[in-house]
């Protein structure tokens, strides 16, 4: 295992120290328990937007804390959901009187921990609502599983709900908007290489020199199919077709198209994937109204990519265009 770390136990704490040193002008880091919060929190009268999850997906979620996006993020250990006390403390820190909305990726651990936190916040007299993301079309028969996983859509969800909160949307409307976004987005990912969780020291799965894994999540877990390595165009088709046919997306619709790197894939390759994805979208009669290309929701150093498509109307696009000022996503300010 080759990593720029000191010791596996210290990875998250030292990362947070780095974030505090780098962005201390606008973020505050709590070390007991771990969370990252806007320095100006709580913003009075604004719904506090809270997310979190295992570490190893950077910049998500900590890199998305700031005006126009998250108010706080709770990092767990690498690939391990955070604990309820983190969300509870973070939730209290960002409650400006209008309640707290939790954005939770649909994993058993995340859901149960956030549920407990919601109970605790509720007992504290704070209004809490929760929006799930479960956009991964690679999870089939989701009725007989823990359900679809939350993946790339989470990034778009955090941006869009962040803008809505900043505009003063009340909690109940935010929750409805979140559910609408949840219902309008689909994703799928693949890996050319596995990744190595620091405290394990060996790759999450083995892949031959000519194999790739299609339908992976974001936790270094193997996917559903192991197939021979294919060209970028073929891979993009393998991801786009299930995404587009699942929702399904209809001719004439507008979408936000998000091509995401898994951490170890260079940007030059993501543009090659975007090229084909855009061509496929066009072939399906979809209009790409906005796009995002880069490594925003990652699996450590895994090489691979995921694609997310979100059906968007003008209201959603206006939220997308609203100013955002976070370490990892910034425009309009």
């Amino acid at each position, binding site marked *: 295992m080759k990593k720029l770390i000191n010791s596996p136990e210290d990875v998250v704490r030292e990362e947070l120290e780095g974030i505090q040193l780098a962005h201390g002008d606008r973020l505050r880091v709590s070390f007991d328990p771990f969370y990252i919060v806007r320095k100006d929190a709580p913003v009075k009268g604004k719904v506090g937007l809270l997310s979190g999850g295992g570490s190893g997906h950077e910049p998500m979620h900590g890199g998305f804390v700031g005006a126009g996006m998250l108010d706080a993020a709770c990092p767990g250990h690498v690939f391990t959901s*955070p604990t309820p006390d983190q969300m509870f403390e973070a939730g209290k820190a960002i409650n400006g009187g209008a309640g707290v909305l939790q954005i939770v990726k649909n994993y058993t651990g995340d859901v149960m921990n956030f549920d407990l936190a919601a109970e605790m916040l509720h007992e504290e007299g704070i209004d809490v609502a929760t929006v799930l993301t479960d956009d991964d079309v690679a999870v089939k028969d989701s009725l007989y*599983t823990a359900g679809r*996983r939350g993946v790339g859509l989470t990034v778009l969800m955090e941006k869009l709900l962040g803008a809505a909160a900043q505009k003063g949307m009340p909690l109940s409307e935010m929750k409805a908007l979140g559910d609408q976004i949840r219902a309008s987005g689909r994703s799928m990912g693949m890996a050319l290489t596995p990744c190595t969780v620091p405290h*394990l020291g060996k790759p999450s799965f083995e892949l031959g020199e000519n194999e790739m894994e299609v339908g992976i999540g974001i936790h270094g877990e193997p996917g559903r199919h192991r197939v021979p390595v294919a060209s970028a165009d073929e891979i993009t088709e393998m991801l786009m077709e299930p995404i587009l046919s699942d929702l399904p997306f209809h001719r004439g619709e507008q979408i936000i198209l998000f091509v995401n790197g898994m951490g170890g894939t260079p940007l030059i390759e993501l543009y090659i994937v975007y090229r084909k994805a855009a061509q496929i979208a066009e072939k399906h009669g979809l209009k790409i109204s906005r796009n995002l290309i880069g490594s925003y929701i990652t699996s450590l150093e895994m090489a691979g990519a995921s694609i997310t498509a979100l059906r968007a109307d003008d209201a959603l696009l206006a939220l997308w265009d609203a100013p955002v000022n976070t370490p990892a996503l910034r425009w309009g300010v």
Partner: protein
Amino acid sequence: MDQLTLAQARSWIDATASVIAENAPHLSELDQAIGDGDHGANMTRGFTAVVKKLTDGAKTDDLGGLFKLVGMTLLSSVGGASGPLYGGFFLDLGKQCAGKQTLDAQALTAVLESGLNDIKRRGKAEIGDKTMVDALTPAIEAMKAASHDVTSATRAAAETARDAATKTAPLLARKGRASYLGERSIGHEDPGANSMALLLGALAGVCHE
């Protein structure tokens, strides 16, 4: 042995911490095959935190207090799926044992069964879904069938759980991370069933001495 005492319960927690730490690499390996490979680290982190609190002199006057402390600590240190499940399990044990200094075999069985129900309620898993429920459920049935002393009841539980954990291998996972693998989850033992077997093994160990 007729009763599980507070001192023994405390030893149970210590023994669990040791056996979990020892078996952490194995638990993580199991989790790496069908999950995300952190189960060993998660459980070790949790029980290390518990032991630290106890060694640092956290006051626990009765079984209820002890189990509540264990539950709260697991909840705030484990994370993942197993954190709320094991945390909730011990919190439930704590509720059942409020004010109690000892448990006889029957009471212990009832308390563990209540804990099992908390796990099932929270995780919505049924028997056969390839989770820790598959180890705990038959273990409790075995305790009910065993003779009414704590030593043989817990030994029955431990042996049954050990066996049941192995038997999770051929199951298709329907809950937790492993469920994403579909057919590919078949052929691997469930990590949580294994940690549950270790927990019950540690219990049998202290009740045997």
